[in-house]
C-alpha cells in the first residue's frame, strides 16, 4: 500500500468522467461510490492504484475510476491482478468483477488467489445472475430461479463464496450490501489495509434481470457475532449463515505472499558462468 500524503483527495478525484453503461438503478453505481469513498478515506494517490476486472456489467468498473485500470477477459481479473502486484509491490491493487466472472469461469483463480494470499483486495459484485449476457443463472443463483437457459431453475444449491474463500485460505472475508454505501466503503478501506488477500462480497442487485432483488435491502443485517480469527469457528459460522449477514466475518493473520520483483541489478556475466565448462 502506498503512503498517505498531505494533500487532501476528494472522492471525486477517484472517479473518471466516463458515464457508466449500467442500467439506471443498478447496484454497481453504489459500489463505485463506495470504492471512491474508501480510497478517499485512505488518501491513496489515484495513480498508485490499479483496478483490474474481468468481463461483465460489474467488470466495467475500472474505467469509471481514476486509477490505472485493466478490463481484462472473462474470469481472469485475479490472475492479471496477481501479476501487477508481484511486479509492482508498491501499488494498491483492487480486483473487481461479478459472480459469474469470479465464481463460475474464474473459480480456479479465486481458489488460488485465496491460497496465495497476495496483498490485494478482491471485490465481487454479486447479483446472482449473469447480467451482461442477459440473465442466466450464476453459481450463486437460487436453484428455483427460472430462466431461458434453465427453465424451471437449475436445481443446484448455490455456491457459498465466503466459505470457499475461507476453505482456500483467504484471511480477510467480508460481505456488504451495495445500498449501504458508507458501510461498504468502510469495509473496502479495511480490506485494502489488510495485508494479504482480502475478499469482499458485495450484494449488488441487478434491477433488470433480477427485479426480485429489491427486497435485499430489507433482508441484509449486520452480523450479530463479533469478528473471529479462528478458521474452524468461522467455517462453522459461515456454513450456517443466511447469506445476508454483513460485515467483516473473518480476519486471520497468515503471512502474505512474499515473492515480488525488486531493484536488484545482478550481473549477467556472473549468471552466465554456470554454462562455462
Amino acid at each position, binding site marked *: 500500500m502506498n503512503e498517505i500524503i498531505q494533500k487532501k483527495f476528494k472522492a471525486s478525484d477517484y472517479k473518471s468522467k466516463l458515464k457508466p453503461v449500467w442500467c439506471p438503478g443498478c447496484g454497481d453505481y453504489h459500489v463505485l461510490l463506495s470504492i471512491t469513498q474508501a480510497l478517499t478515506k485512505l488518501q491513496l494517490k489515484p495513480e498508485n492504484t490499479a483496478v483490474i476486472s474481468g468481463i461483465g456489467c460489474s467488470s466495467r468498473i475500472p474505467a469509471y475510476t481514476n486509477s490505472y485500470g485493466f478490463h481484462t*477477459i472473462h474470469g481472469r481479473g485475479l490472475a492479471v491482478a496477481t*501479476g501487477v502486484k508481484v511486479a*509492482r509491490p508498491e501499488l494498491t491493487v483492487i480486483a473487481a468483477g461479478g459472480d459469474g466472472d469470479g465464481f463460475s469461469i474464474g473459480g480456479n483463480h479465486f481458489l488460488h488467489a485465496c491460497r496465495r494470499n497476495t496483498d490485494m483486495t478482491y471485490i465481487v459484485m454479486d447479483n446472482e445472475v449473469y447480467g451482461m449476457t442477459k440473465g442466466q443463472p450464476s453459481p450463486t443463483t437460487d436453484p428455483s430461479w427460472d430462466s431461458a437457459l434453465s427453465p424451471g431453475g437449475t436445481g443446484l444449491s448455490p455456491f457459498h463464496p465466503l466459505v470457499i474463500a475461507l476453505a482456500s485460505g483467504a484471511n480477510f472475508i467480508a460481505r456488504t450490501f451495495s445500498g449501504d454505501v458508507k458501510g461498504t466503503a468502510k469495509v473496502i478501506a479495511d480490506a485494502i489495509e489488510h495485508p494479504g488477500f482480502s475478499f469482499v462480497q458485495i450484494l449488488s442487485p441487478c434491477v433488470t434481470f433480477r427485479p426480485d432483488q429489491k427486497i435485499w435491502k430489507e433482508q441484509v443485517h449486520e452480523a450479530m457475532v463479533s469478528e473471529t480469527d479462528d478458521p474452524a469457528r468461522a467455517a462453522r459460522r459461515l456454513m450456517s449463515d443466511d447469506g445476508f449477514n454483513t460485515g467483516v466475518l473473518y480476519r486471520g493473520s497468515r503471512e502474505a505472499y512474499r515473492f515480488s520483483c*525488486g531493484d536488484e541489478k545482478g550481473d549477467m556475466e556472473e549468471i552466465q558462468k554456470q554454462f562455462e565448462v
Partner: protein
Amino acid sequence: MTDGDQNTSVSVAMVGSGGAGVMTSGNMMLEAATKAGLYGLMTRTVGPQIRGGEAAALLRLSGKPVHCVDDTFDILVAVDWKGAERFAGEVPLGADSLIITDPATGDIPEILTDSGARIVEVPIGELAASVEGGRANMVILGLVASLIGLDEEPINKIIAKKLGKKGDAAVKASREAVSAGYDAAGGITSPVTVSPSDDKKDRWLISGNQAAGFGALRGGIRFVAAYPITPATEVLEWMSPNLPKVGGTLVQAEDELASINMAIGASFGGRPSLTATSGPGLSLMMEGIGLAVSSETPVVIVNVMRGGPSTGVPTKSEQTDLNIAVYGLHGDAPHIVTAATSVEDCIFTTQWSVYLAEAMQTAAIVLSDQFMGQASSIIDPPANISFMAQRLVESEPDESYLRYAVTADGVSPMTLPGTPGGQYTADGLEHNPKGLPSTLMEDHRDQMDKRDRKVAEFNYGDHWADVEGDDGCELVILTWGSTTNAVREAIERLNGEGVSCKLVAMRLLSPAVPEQFDQTLMGAKRVLVVEQSHSGQFLKLLRANYNMPGEVKSYRRPGPLIVRPGEIVDTIKNWSVQ
C-alpha cells in the same frame, strides 16, 4: 560419420534400461569431450515409463561445431536391450555402424541388426563385476571413449568432479571400470574417430531450454509466470533461481490461463514478462495472448513444441505448433511469431523476441522444440547482442495523453502505473484512442490498422531469416526451427558434390516480410520446403503469405524421428534426376 571431409564427426548411442545410468555416461562423455576441445550435442530418448524404463543417450561429437544429428549412428553400445525395440526407430544404423553388445543380456532387436551393422560382443557386465563397485555404464564410457579416440585423462577429471562428493571409493570404482572399458576396446576396429583439437578455448555447455531462459533474462525479462509442462519445464526451472539475481521473480501459476494473464499483468505494471509452455498449454493461453494484442501489452511466450495433436507425444519433437502460433487467435490479431534455429540460437531468438514484443507492445511467441530444448550442446560462448527490452513509455503525460493514440508507426507511448496523470484503462474491448470502449466503425478500423501497421511495417533487419549461399542460386531450401541445421549440413554435403544451394531459414514466421522474401528468393527456379510436420504447416504458411517463385516441392514428415541431413540430400538428388 558424414560424407564430406569437413564434417568428420562421430555419433554414438548408449542404451540401457532401468537405472543402467547411460545418461550419466553420456553427460560425462560430453563434458570430457569439451575438455578435449571438441564440440558436441547430446539428446536423450526414453520410454514411456516415468522412471527406469529403456533409455538412450545419443551423442554426436566433432572438432567442429555440431548442430544436428547425423543420418546414422557410428557406434551403438548397450548395457542391455530391454525395451530397446521401442525406440530403435530413432537410432538409425548403417552397414558401417558398429553394435557392441554384451551377449549375457540377450538378443539385439531385429530392427537394429537388419541394418547390417557389424556386431562385436563384449562382456560388459563381467567387466563391471570385475571391479569392486564397478558399474556397466562406466565400462561403456571407457569403451566408447577409447574407440573414438578420447583420452582417459579428461574422463578421469570429470569423474572426480561429478563423483567426488560420493567419496574416494566411488571415484576409484568408476575410474577402474572406465579403464576396463578402455582395455576391452583394444581389439575392436572403430568405424570412426575424432581428433581432439588443441584449441582448448572456453566453451559453454547449454541446452536450448536454458539458452531460451538465458536469452530472455538478457533481453530484460524480469517476471515469469510458470506452469510446468514437458518439454518446456526446464526453461522455467532455469529461470526460477536466476531471476531474483536481477530483481525478477517467478510465480508458479495454477494453470496456463493464470500464467499468461499474470505475465500480462506484470507487463502492464512495467516489467518485461514471459511464460513458457508447450502445445496443450499454448492452447489454453490463446485467449490471454489475444488480450495482450488488443490491449497492447507486451508479453513473450516461449513454446517448446512436442508431438501433437492433443497430449500427443510429449517427450518427442515435432514442428506442428506453427499453425496455432500464427493463426490461433480469434479475430484479426496481428502479433509476432519467431523461431530459434538451433540450441545456440535459442539465446538470440528469445532475446530478440523480448525486444520485439516490448518495442511493438504486443505478444511474441517464440517457437523452440523438444529436440533443441532438451539437447545439451557444446558451443562457443555466444556474442553479447544488444537487443534489450525498451518500451516506448510516456513518463510525463499531460491532459492530452492518449494511450492508444493512432501514430504513424502504430506504436503509442504507454504510461506505467504510478505515473501521475497517465491513468488509463487497458482493454480487450475495442476502444478509441483514449482507451474507452467503442463500437464505432471508425475506431475499430483505426485501431485494427494501427495494431497491424506496427507489426507489419517494423524494421526487422536481417534477422527475419538466416540466409546462406550465393545470390544466383537457382535451388533454394526454405526451412525453419530445429530442422535448419539438418538442412545446413545437407547443403554442405551437396556443395561438396558440386550442387550449389541456398539456405533460407526463417526466424520470423509472422508477420510476413514479402519484400525481403522476394528479394532473397529472386531467381529461384526450384524451392524445397523442409519441415517436420505431417500436414505441411510451414508450406501452407508460405503459400498463404508469399509468392513462391519457381517449382515448389515439400519435404515433410511427422516426428518423433528427427529430420536428418541425408533425407534432404536424397530429396534434392532425386529431384535433380527427374
